[in-house]
């Protein structure tokens, strides 16, 4: 058959072979991933995609065959995702996050992180000063649930036992670990939710409550001559955990800053761009909380020597400092 009564029928007849080829390639790329296509297939996928884009543009102009139009719309949409929506595999994504995105974002928000750390340390100092001036006010700065028996009425021996307790049987450990996981996540979640709603205002309050409790407890132990042991008990995981809290707080501060001072962007644009970077900070912080939980749940139960505990604390501080200072510097790609 050589002639067609409709131009659109002729148009379709000339091109539908290429569309079919593209459809097969797209199905294969979707099922296994474009990385599993060989080089020739990838090249023809790109060429056939451009051909189909041309077909779609023409069909929109000359054809009224709804089935052809819908088919081409769908084909181009799916092929577009294969060609442009290329993805990273799990390994590349993790490597990019750990090796580049996370430390670079921390550096970008260096001022916010520093401010959050300063607030946290100031709160620790204030907490210990309050308890030093009047031990009665211990209960004001350390909540009853955080104290867990570590109160001024406890004997020095009891306080010491907390630092070197082995935590009992295995089942108990698991339970504390689960609780830990939950409370840490709650902490992150609360920080994020609170900052999102209230423009970062709750951040100083959260930092203060964390820091005051820590300072108050430290002062209680110092007054019994257990300062070195106490910090040896807190810091191995505390370095990671406090840094992570500071990162979450920095994310909250940045978010609040974008909400209050969007500068030359619309508020919506400023928030979504900051939101993405804040998400990186919080994600990294979640990882740091996990590391802290593992150190606390496993290392602290098995290692009782204060010197070893201090060594781990100092080492983790140096590691984090080095990681955040030098991590991802050699990567050329710029963040959004």
């Amino acid at each position, binding site marked *: 058959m050589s002639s067609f*009564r*409709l*131009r*659109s*029928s002729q148009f*379709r*007849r000339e091109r*539908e072979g290429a*569309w*079919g080829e593209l*459809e097969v390639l797209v199905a294969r790329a*979707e099922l296994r*991933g474009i990385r599993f296509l060989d080089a020739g297939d990838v090249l023809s996928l790109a060429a056939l995609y*451009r051909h189909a884009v041309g077909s*779609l*543009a023409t069909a929109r*102009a*000359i*054809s*009224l*065959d*709804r*089935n052809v139009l819908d*088919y081409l*719309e*769908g*084909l*181009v*949409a*799916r092929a*577009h*995702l294969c060609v*442009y*929506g*290329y*993805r990273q*595999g*799990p390994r590349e*994504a993790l490597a*990019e*996050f750990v090796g580049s*995105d996370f430390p670079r974002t921390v550096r970008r928000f260096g001022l916010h992180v520093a401010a959050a750390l300063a607030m946290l340390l100031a709160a620790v100092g204030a907490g210990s000063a309050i308890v030093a001036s009047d031990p009665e006010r211990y209960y004001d700065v350390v909540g009853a*649930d955080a104290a867990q028996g570590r109160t001024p009425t406890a004997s020095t021996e009891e306080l010491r036992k907390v630092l070197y307790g082995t935590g009992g049987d295995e*089942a108990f450990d*698991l*339970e504390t670990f*689960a609780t830990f*996981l*939950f*409370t840490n*996540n709650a902490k*992150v*979640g609360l920080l*994020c*939710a609170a900052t999102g709603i209230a423009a970062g205002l709750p951040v100083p309050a959260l930092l203060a409550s964390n820091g005051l409790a820590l300072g108050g407890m430290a002062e209680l132990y110092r007054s019994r001559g257990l300062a070195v042991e106490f910090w040896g008990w807190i810091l191995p995981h505390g370095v990671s955990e406090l840094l992570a809290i500071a990162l979450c707080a920095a994310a909250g501060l940045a978010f609040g800053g974008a909400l209050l001072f969007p500068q030359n962007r619309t508020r919506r644009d400023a928030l*979504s761009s900051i*939101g*993405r970077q804040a*998400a990186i900070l919080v*994600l990294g912080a979640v990882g740091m909380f996990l590391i802290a939980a593992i150190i606390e749940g496993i290392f602290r139960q098995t290692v009782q020597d204060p010197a070893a505990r201090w060594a781990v604390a100092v080492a983790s501080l140096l590691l984090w400092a080095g990681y955040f200072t030098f991590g991802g510097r050699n990567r050329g790609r710029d963040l959004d």
Partner: protein
Amino acid sequence: MDAIWTERVADELAVVSPEGTTVRFRLPGPADRLAAFLIDLFLTQLASALVLLAVVAIAGVAPAAAWAVYLIASFFLRNVYFAFVELLWSGQTIGKRQLGLRVIARDGGPLTGQAILARNLTREIEFFLPMVALSEPRRLLPFSEGWSVVLAVSWLAVFAALPLLNREHLRCGDFLGGTVVVRLPKLALLSDLALRDTRGPAYLFSPAHLDVYGIEELQVLETVLRRAAERDHPELVDGVRERIQRKIRWTAGGRVDSVEFLRAFYEAQRAHLERKMVFGVRKERKER
């Protein structure tokens, strides 16, 4: 005739490709999203239960610790599952594959690992955290069980309501990751109704006959013909033929075969409208 016509709905996401063509994606409704999530949720919880069973069978855990084992297993499995599978299958999970959904970047560009991590780990805050809190309310607010439940439920409700309140049904995680979930279109290229043997049209129409209807009616007719081609619908095609004949005032001497008439009319009408379109006139629908 209106009953079989599905209007092109507004729930579309248009992305301009680097070639300069608008690529359109259909957006799924909240029900599809929920169904996909429930499938994935079921799978991860099933896996967590299996881990718990294995731990109990091998190590023999005390009942008090069983819940802790389950929480830990579920925490790791769900976080690893969602992020890992979406990275592996470029924006699909098992549930999304079942329902033909896929995550894409809102600007149509590459879906980065960063975006996938952001949209999936946010689930922890959006859903799992309040759920765990509901299972043990005292951990949320130690002083009051009742207020804990109220807080957890309203937390869940806020995040669950968010996708219902924006056109693209974005979750909190989608906002953060810059992503959107779209429906993968099904591809079916059916035969060309206008392409027939060389016998020539069975019935002839004058330009006056063809100036009555527009593109919308043509495509309704296409749907009718495709239905009739699948299975015989004598009363449908007869009814449509009678309405068309009456509307365009077309009469014939003898008996008219409905399917033949409709096919001939479809072809003539499409040729007529496509010719007008080439000259820049799009007649969308008939004048009432």
